[in-house]
């Protein structure tokens, strides 16, 4: 049963070939048996899952079940869940149990999904390898000596290990697409504002966006359809009509114009990764698409701009963790300053502290214009590159990551080297565009991801393009386990 896709589970549940209770019990047992090898879950919500599965079976029996009713999912542990610990993989929030659900959890619960648990991640979503979790690193199911990518590494690894068919995740600089690429899963970051951020612990508010990680584009389309809604509780939530993202999956892509940026195939890209991506582009040509050479000239500035903007926003967002209202508090503080300083010094891990300090620097008197304001200007230049490109093409394609998964610990001593892992994904977040990663081959038995960047609000087309590729290739069916 664990090998079924979400689409197959929907058919099986609706035809009553199996019940949600059977499916849920099977996957819970699998998590219990196997997850010690991957560490992809922080919390397993067995009791909740069984009660939701029972309720789902009742809805199915009455013939009033929504499409996803009874399908098991997991939520990244940055997404608030009522009565269930939401730790952000941090000692700071190790004891935090929110009294509310995030809007996307509410939406998925409303669609009848069954929550199996909360997935591991980089602390406060800061990382590209999933090694900075307070609960220990996640292991890549393709090779447990390697990282699964970050920060949504737990969600990606759980899907790749067939512990759950789909999971929620968040992407601030590539954290859905990069782990999807390294684990042979399909991950989609929607247009900024498409999915409500209410109830998701904020890292960098102008960049954060939630989306699904699943085994293929069709499954991602099912999950995204349930996740998207206009949310008055999130002032950046876009008010657009509801879309069924599965509706256009079968459309032909003949005549599609695919932009191929020269900057994504330069120095720093692993030669074999480049070859797998080029092979994928040839497949698209066979499907009737046309490849168009384009340039995104400000690409190399995306990382420096991100590492000013994201830490600056993080330093403001994480100021709420002060040991007073929730989260970790140090023992016996001698005064209020001591309480703040020690609670935050003890509660935050190394990478989180580093980013807060960089953000404080960028926003401090005398440096604001030189760093923060400058980065926001460069951000506009990066967006303009994409706007100009989309005047000529329908989607943009390239590698998701510079190389396949690297070994645990390989880049831990050099934060700057780690930051370069997101070199192809960050610009999409700065511009607010939707992006996804789909499996497109293996190098030394480690997965390679193809990145598809779409125009604003064009998630349907991206999913259609990805699905058509997955109809003629079987990379997405390759399994780690």
């Amino acid at each position, binding site marked *: 049963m664990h090998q079924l896709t979400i689409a197959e589970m929907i058919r099986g549940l609706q035809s009553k070939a199996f019940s949600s209770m059977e499916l849920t019990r099977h996957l819970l047992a699998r998590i219990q048996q196997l997850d010690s090898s991957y560490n992809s879950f922080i919390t397993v919500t067995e009791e909740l899952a069984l009660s939701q599965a029972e309720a789902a079976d009742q809805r199915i029996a009455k013939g009033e079940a929504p499409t996803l009713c009874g399908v098991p999912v997991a939520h990244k542990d940055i997404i608030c869940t009522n009565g269930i610990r939401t730790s952000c993989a941090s000692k700071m929030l190790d004891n935090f*149990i929110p*009294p509310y659900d995030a809007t996307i959890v509410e939406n998925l619960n409303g669609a009848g999904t069954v929550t199996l648990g909360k997935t591991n991640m980089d602390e406060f979503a800061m990382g590209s390898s999933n090694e900075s979790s307070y609960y220990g690193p996640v292991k890549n199911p393709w090779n447990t000596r390697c990282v699964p990518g970050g920060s949504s590494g737990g969600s990606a690894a759980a899907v790749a290990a067939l512990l759950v068919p789909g999971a929620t995740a968040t992407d601030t600089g590539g954290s859905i697409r990069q782990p999807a690429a390294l684990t042979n899963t399909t991950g989609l970051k929607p*247009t900024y504002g498409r999915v409500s951020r209410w109830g998701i612990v904020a890292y960098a508010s102008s960049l954060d966006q939630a989306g699904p990680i699943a085994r293929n584009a069709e499954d991602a389309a099912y999950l995204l359809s349930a996740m998207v809604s206009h949310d008055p509780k999130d002032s950046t*939530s876009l008010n657009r009509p509801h879309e069924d993202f599965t509706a256009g999956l079968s459309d032909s892509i003949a005549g599609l114009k695919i932009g191929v940026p020269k900057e994504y195939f330069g120095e720093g890209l692993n030669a074999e990764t480049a070859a797998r991506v080029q092979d994928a582009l040839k497949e698209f040509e066979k499907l009737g698409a046309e490849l168009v050479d384009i340039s995104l000239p400000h690409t190399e500035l995306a990382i*420096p*701009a991100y590492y000013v903007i994201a830490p600056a926003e993080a330093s403001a967002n994480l100021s709420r963790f002060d040991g007073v209202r*929730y989260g970790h508090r140090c023992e016996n503080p001698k*005064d209020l300053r001591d309480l703040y300083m*020690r609670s935050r010094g003890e509660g935050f891990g190394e990478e989180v502290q580093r980013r807060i300090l960089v953000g404080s620097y960028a926003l401090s008197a005398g440096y604001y214009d030189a760093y923060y304001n400058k980065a926001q200007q460069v951000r506009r230049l990066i967006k303009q590159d994409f706007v100009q490109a989309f005047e000529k093409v329908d989607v943009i394609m390239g590698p998701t990551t510079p190389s396949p998964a690297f070994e645990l610990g390989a880049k831990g001593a050099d934060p*700057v080297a780690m930051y370069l892992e997101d070199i192809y994904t960050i610009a999409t977040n700065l511009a607010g565009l939707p992006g996804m990663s789909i499996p497109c081959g293996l190098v030394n038995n480690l997965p390679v991801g193809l990145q598809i960047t779409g125009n604003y609000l064009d998630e349907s087309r991206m999913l259609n393009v990805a699905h058509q590729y997955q109809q003629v290739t079987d990379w997405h069916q390759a399994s780690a386990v």
Partner: protein
Amino acid sequence: MAVDTQTVEKLAELARIAISEETIEEVSGRLGDILQLVDQLQAVNTDGVVPMAHPLDEVQTLRADKVTETDQHQSFLNLAPQSEEGLYLVPKVID
């Protein structure tokens, strides 16, 4: 760009994060590497470019000025490390 330990101490104070004496050298080295990376921005000509704070330049949404939230203060107080009689407790601030 090098970051001296005095600057790190000042940043730690601004960010309200206690950093131990033993790690301050290492922290300053790492911050220096990151600031060297972001210093690439200084070479870009951005004359006349309007800074971009929101990716879609959307207009801020407004709502009617009326209370829609229910009172959940007890739920939130329950999360606090220390609270009493509906208030958050902190060490004494005024002598």
